[in-house]
């Protein structure tokens, strides 16, 4: 499976008569893009804003951040299941806009109605200042402020706002067709020097069985009770995995994060140099019984053994329940003779001195920290300054508790509990600026 990822640089975005890429300036016909979003009957209204890198701007109620990508050849479409069919992706050529992002901002009709979907707490993306933790602060951004039809169901709301962003991202990447790429990177896993260590990547993915949307989709299909399966990294680069659009929650990743997964890209780029990358093993974590957890762990380890892995990297996200599965997988692999590096954030509780992991096994001897999810407790909350411009709702509720007050989005904020409303503050795949210091 060979994928060419072609970059088309964008340094500026402006509105104009025709949607096209002129040099490195992306011109957008506002009415055309509005029409594309409103072609979905579940969406009542949309407004489109442009936000430049480095602006003193806060974007609120952010649901997804998406890199514009489109398939030129090779079959299928980027973000399959939402844009295009469920045909196999990961082959041929994919064009991407480098330096432009589509951001989806949408209110929460179900919360307003008292439906209690607390996952949809209001979130913020700051483009500059100490809260600028996402790729949006280094990018030119098209923000869709969407109002869903008040009559649509919970699942319709989720899929409508997610599809809208993905469709627009796909359309904007379509401006690159017939143009010459600035750079092309090739991704494939050809046979390499057999003496290189063979390494597999375990993608631990949580699911919430009791939610109508369990949290993660593969080719648009919601994943529930599913045992481990093998995935080619190119499928991920073409957006085969996507989260429910609730980024900011520790339960979710943006489309951008999925398609630029730091562990996957890094292991692809090192294939043939210092490792032999065997690909990705998807593992559903957060089974609700010990039996489910043990079965998924041993089956994942079995797949890795069958691939002749010498070593494995494991990542995960969500909460303590899911981490039990991760530790059991670590144990199952080590018992098969596969060396494991487990990447995890820490939960060091009130003082920063508590034991940071809820569960460990003696075989977990190589663990990389991706930051402390409760670091505010020892270092104080993250203080965000007031901003000049707000895109999205101007009154927001960062505390998801019922009845919590709304606040002006222009003002100063202190982000505390689990850093949840601040998109990018929890960085479980080690992509960006969050790190841990030992002292």
């Amino acid at each position, binding site marked *: 499976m060979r994928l060419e990822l072609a970059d088309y640089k964008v340094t500026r975005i402006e509105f104009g008569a025709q949607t096209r890429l002129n040099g490195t300036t992306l011109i957008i016909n506002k009415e055309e893009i509005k029409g594309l979003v409103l072609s979905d009957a579940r969406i009542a209204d949309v407004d489109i804003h442009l936000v430049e890198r480095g602006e003193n701007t806060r974007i609120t109620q952010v649901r997804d951040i998406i890199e514009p990508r489109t398939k030129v050849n090779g079959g299928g479409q980027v973000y399959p299941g939402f844009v295009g069919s469920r045909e196999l992706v990961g082959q041929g050529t994919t064009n991407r806009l480098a330096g432009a992002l589509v951001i989806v901002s949408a209110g929460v009709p179900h919360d307003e109605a008292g439906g209690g979907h607390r996952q949809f707490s209001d979130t913020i993306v700051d483009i500059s200042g100490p809260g600028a933790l996402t790729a949006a602060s280094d990018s030119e951004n098209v923000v869709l402020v969407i109002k869903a039809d008040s009559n649509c169901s919970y699942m319709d709301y989720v899929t409508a706002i997610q599809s809208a962003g993905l469709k627009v991202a796909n359309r904007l990447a379509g401006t690159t067709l017939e143009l010459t790429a600035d750079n092309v990177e090739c991704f494939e896993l050809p046979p390499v020097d057999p003496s290189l260590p063979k390494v597999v990547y375990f993608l631990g993915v949580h699911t919430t069985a*009791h939610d109508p949307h369990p949290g993660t989709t593969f080719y648009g299909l919601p994943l529930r009770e599913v045992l481990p399966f093998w995935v080619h990294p190119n499928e991920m680069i073409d957006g085969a995995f996507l989260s429910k659009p609730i980024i900011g929650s520790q339960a979710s990743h943006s489309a951008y994060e999925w398609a630029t997964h730091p562990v996957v890209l890094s292991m692809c780029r090192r294939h043939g140099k210092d490792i032999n990358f065997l690909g990705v093993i998807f593992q559903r974590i957060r089974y*609700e*019984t*010990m039996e489910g*957890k043990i079965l998924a762990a041993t089956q994942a380890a079995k797949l890795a053994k069958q691939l002749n892995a010498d070593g494995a990297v494991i990542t995960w996200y969500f909460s303590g*329940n899911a981490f*039990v599965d991760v530790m059991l997988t670590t144990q199952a692999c080590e018992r098969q003779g596969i060396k494991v590096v487990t990447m995890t954030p820490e939960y060091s509780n009130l003082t920063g001195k508590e034991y940071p992991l*809820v*569960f*460990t*096994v*003696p075989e977990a001897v190589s663990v990389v920290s991706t930051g402390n999810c409760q670091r505010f407790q020892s270092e104080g909350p993250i203080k965000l300054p007031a901003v000049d411009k707000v895109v999205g709702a101007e009154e927001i509720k960062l505390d998801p508790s019922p009845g919590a007050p709304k606040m002006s989005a222009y003002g100063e904020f202190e982000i505390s509990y689990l850093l949840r409303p601040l998109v990018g503050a929890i960085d479980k795949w080690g992509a960006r600026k969050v790190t841990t210091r030992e002292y």
Partner: protein
Amino acid sequence: MAKEIERVGIPVALITALELLALHHGANRVVKGVAIPHPCGEPEASAEDDLKVRRTIIDLALEALQTEIVEPKVFARDFGVYTAKL
């Protein structure tokens, strides 16, 4: 909490779906529950069967409380009483 209550001399039976996690944190009498969202019952079963499961698990917990133990034990309705290792 189980450890702190036992520290003042009151035995504790901890009902949990994740027996390994309970043992990891030092619980001594661990009663195997059904699943994390419903440790004491089977909501998908009929009301009569749900009641049977609930009663069995509570009976196990009462049995655990009356059992002298020298090392941590799991009390399960399928495999009986056993010692589990991490």
